[in-house]
């Protein structure tokens, strides 16, 4: 007798869940499994092997690309947080509530343009005859050879992720109960002390999540390095695309992608560990 109504409800819930779950299984989990499996084959041969991975470890070009990606990503993450935090803080604290939405919208408006187009626009800015160099040479300084270099890639990335982080850090700051700040002030803390002891530690989880998102998105990005980077200094995603396009070596491409995922997972675990340590 038990469970007739509950059975009906459970069946209903399962039916509602089915489309989304099936889609995720079929078009996300399954392909991921396929990719992982393929990474264990060598192009053109049958049989399973870790050959792709050993090739990765033994090839200085591959390792170089991986380290490249790591370095760029870490630099971009740190820079973007440094640039975004003050702006997010200003919008959250100094701007009157009425104007906050406008300020935020302005801060991320270019976010909503085509990503491809935006990276291209940076190449315009930093080209040899580009806007930046025009401005610099007109001041009498020597022109910068920024276009097609790692620095350009970092700048392009930082531009995008600063906007993203302004949003996420703002969201984190705005969640803090205002009374905490008042309580600290009431007990004699000045603005710097309030930031150091109250705001920074409490907003940290949100900031950390934003930084992780930045890391994950940046390390896997193909467009910006391809448009703004030099041909010698490849990032790992570019290598992956090369394997797909030029060599049609899907197994190797899969292996490299998995390595990328591992890097992101490691970053996630480090984040989770440090978050737990903080709590």
């Amino acid at each position, binding site marked *: 007798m038990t469970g*007739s109504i509950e059975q009906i409800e459970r069946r209903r819930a399962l039916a509602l869940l089915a489309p989304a779950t099936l889609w995720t299984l079929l078009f996300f989990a399954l392909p991921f499994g396929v990719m992982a499996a393929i990474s264990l084959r060598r192009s053109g041969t049958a049989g399973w092997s870790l050959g792709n991975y050993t090739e990765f470890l033994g090839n200085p070009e591959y390792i170089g690309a991986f380290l490249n990606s790591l370095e760029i990503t870490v630099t971009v993450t740190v820079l973007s947080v440094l640039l975004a935090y003050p702006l997010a803080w200003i919008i959250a604290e100094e701007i009157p509530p009425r104007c906050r939405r406008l300020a935020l919208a302005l801060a991320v408006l270019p976010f909503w343009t085509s990503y491809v187009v935006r990276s291209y626009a940076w190449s315009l800015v930093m080209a040899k005859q580009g806007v930046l160099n025009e401005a610099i040479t007109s001041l009498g300084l020597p022109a910068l050879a920024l276009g097609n270099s790692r620095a350009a890639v970092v700048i392009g990335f930082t531009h995008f992720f600063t906007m993203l982080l302004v949003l996420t850090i703002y969201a984190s700051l705005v969640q803090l109960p205002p009374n905490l700040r008042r309580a600290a002030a009431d007990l004699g803390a000045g603005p710097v002390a309030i930031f150091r002891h109250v705001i920074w530690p409490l907003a940290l989880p949100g900031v950390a999540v934003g930084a992780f998102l930045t890391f994950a998105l940046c390390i896997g990005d193909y467009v910006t390095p391809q448009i703004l980077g030099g041909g010698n200094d490849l990032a790992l995603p570019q290598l992956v695309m090369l394997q797909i396009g030029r060599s049609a070596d899907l197994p190797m491409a899969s292996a490299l992608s998995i390595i990328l995922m591992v890097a992101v997972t490691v970053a996630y675990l480090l984040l989770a560990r440090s978050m737990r340590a903080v709590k």
Partner: protein
Amino acid sequence: MTARIDVENLTRRYGTANALAGVTLTVEAGEYCVLLGPSGCGKTTLLNILGGFADPSSGSLRIGGRDMVGVPAAQRPTTTVFQDYALFPHMTLRDNVGFGLRMRGQGRAERNRRAEEMLDLVGLTGAGGKRPSQLSGGQRQRVALARALAVEPDVLLLDEPLGALDLNLRRTMQEELKAIQRRVGATFVHVTHDQEEAMAIADRIVVMNKGLIEDEGPPERVYRRPKTRFAAAFLGEMNFVPAQVRTGRLDSPLGDLGPTEHAAGPVTLGIRPAHLRPGPEAQIPAHIIEVMFQGIHRRVRVEAAGLTLLAHLPLGQEAAPGDQVMLAVDAPEIVVLP
């Protein structure tokens, strides 16, 4: 319409906890039944089972003679007035009230006409075009009632409907609910923890505790002759005095308290504070510990014969802590409990 409710040996387990431990109850068609008890007693669980929102673990439930176990809420001849009203915020009052009729396939003109009728019944004439956000709490409650009644249910279930209202509004609504129930004729099952409310409205009170029914019946009977100690204490303040039945009389620390037909042996006597008062034949010396003004009388805590008791003193009599008074007991009103 209206219908009779038959509950037999209903239980409901959540893991190892017993929300309902075997409830048997009959509510006649057209009765106003109130489920009364402290939080956790199982009254809301019972209401949910009646409404079709939860299954019993065992036992049977019949409404209008039809077996209801396993039948979902949408197909039962019951509707519910929820504690938080659960009005549809994006619909006008008219559409809210007419919703159940719409589900039954009624046309728009007919629905609207009936909705206006129901709004009129609950005292919100002409407000059909408004939205819930424009109403006060009391008004929302009436709309919820109108919405539930619009489909002419056999049984109307009310889950602590007056809990969010202030005292005066609550009293007014109690009268209105009673009047509406008489007009409409459906069987009402109303859950509350407020014993005054229960006694004011109910045709039948069901006192529950820890998943079981302690006592049930007409309010006056349950109040004056409660069957269990819990029921006695829950319906109003009660003094409990240990006593012995000897040779057909009640022998207590307060003296001989009159004849009884109860079997010989130890008993507990329940004496309402209103029945412990001064009077011409007062013979029990009592020492006043605390005095509280209650409008119609003074409620005093006294010490008599080694017991701490509550008594009522009329306003005319001056009383202060430390005073001595003489009290008498209204013997016919004594409740003898096992």
